[in-house]
């Protein structure tokens, strides 16, 4: 006789239990959201090591602020994305200082094993171009297009009005298309020379 699975507890319920010190509840929350935070951080920084640090720091912040987290203000994933976004921008500042801008895109691609291993060269190109975008455009594309958050959720993560999300998304996509075009033309020129 098949056993009916109990419905998974909601985030607010798990938060409440974690506040009471129930480690399983916190573990459940972590397993539910960590991959999303990790992928977001990795897309933002282009680095697996930094993404790992960001996931750890974001959840440590959650442990510290369990009492203060208000589920009514933002869903947990949005809240975690907000922390991860701040951490990514902060950590990326230090990283970009050490890498010459001419090689930034290339370095980001090399540091990302998923991109390196990708069988699709276009995907690698896209990833590198995305990594090379200014942070304010990169983050909005990653949140809206890669993670499929809606405008309102993205606005909460970035702490900007919805109109700003729309305009940045539009401008970011245009920049990305321009960069992809430039790279394609470069490849064609390279092919002719060779």
């Amino acid at each position, binding site marked *: 006789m098949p056993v009916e699975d109990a419905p998974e507890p909601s985030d607010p319920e798990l938060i409440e239990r974690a506040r009471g010190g129930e480690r399983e509840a916190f573990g459940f929350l972590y397993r539910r959201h960590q991959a999303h935070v990790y992928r977001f951080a*990795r897309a933002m920084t282009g680095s697996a090591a930094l993404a790992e640090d960001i*996931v750890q720091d974001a959840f440590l912040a959650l442990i510290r602020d369990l009492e203060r987290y208000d589920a009514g203000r933002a869903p947990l994933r949005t809240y975690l994305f907000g922390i991860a976004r701040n951490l990514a921008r902060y950590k990326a500042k230090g990283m970009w200082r050490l890498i010459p801008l001419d090689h930034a895109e290339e370095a980001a691609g090399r540091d990302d094993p998923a991109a390196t291993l990708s069988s699709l060269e276009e995907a690698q190109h896209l990833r590198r171009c995305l990594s090379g975008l200014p942070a304010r455009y990169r983050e909005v594309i990653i949140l809206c297009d890669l993670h499929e958050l809606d*405008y309102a959720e993205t606005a909460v993560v970035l702490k900007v009005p919805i109109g700003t999300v729309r305009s940045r998304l539009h401008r970011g996509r245009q920049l990305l*298309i321009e960069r992809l075009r430039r790279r394609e033309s470069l490849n064609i020129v390279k092919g002719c020379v060779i």
Partner: protein
Amino acid sequence: MKREDVTPEERELLHAIGALAREDERLAAPPRVEERLMRAFDETHASGVQQPRWLVRHVLKVAAVFVLAVASGYWWSRGAEPPSAQTQDQTESPAVVASWPSSETWAWLDPDPESLQIVRVRIPSAALAAQGYAFEDADGDGLVELEVIVGADGMTRGVRLAQAASVIY
């Protein structure tokens, strides 16, 4: 809603980004991150977040008792009288206190210890000798330099030889 009015180029871009998202689906933080976080969670909840109020209250009580005990012990060991009694005796206190007071007992010498002053005076050694205080006149000028603690009321609280900083009686 958000994908409305996209140009063919943008549509192509979104398609490519969708492929990236599918490629990234297998990515996740390594298990060691979860281990570290669970340890941090355990430590946080074992070491204070759950029981801060009663723990802090107990610590404060113990600290207060400890401070009171140390203070009482100190006064007891010094064999001193409470400040009010000392103030009451001031009118009868002799011009020369038995010893140069330690810095801790200055507060007992005067209700307003900040007003106490140290005055350096030179007294003929012969006059002191006539009172029974014999000092060697080191520089041969017939004078001995003394330091005197004077209160705001003009009464002397202590005296000592300035050169040797030794206590006199």
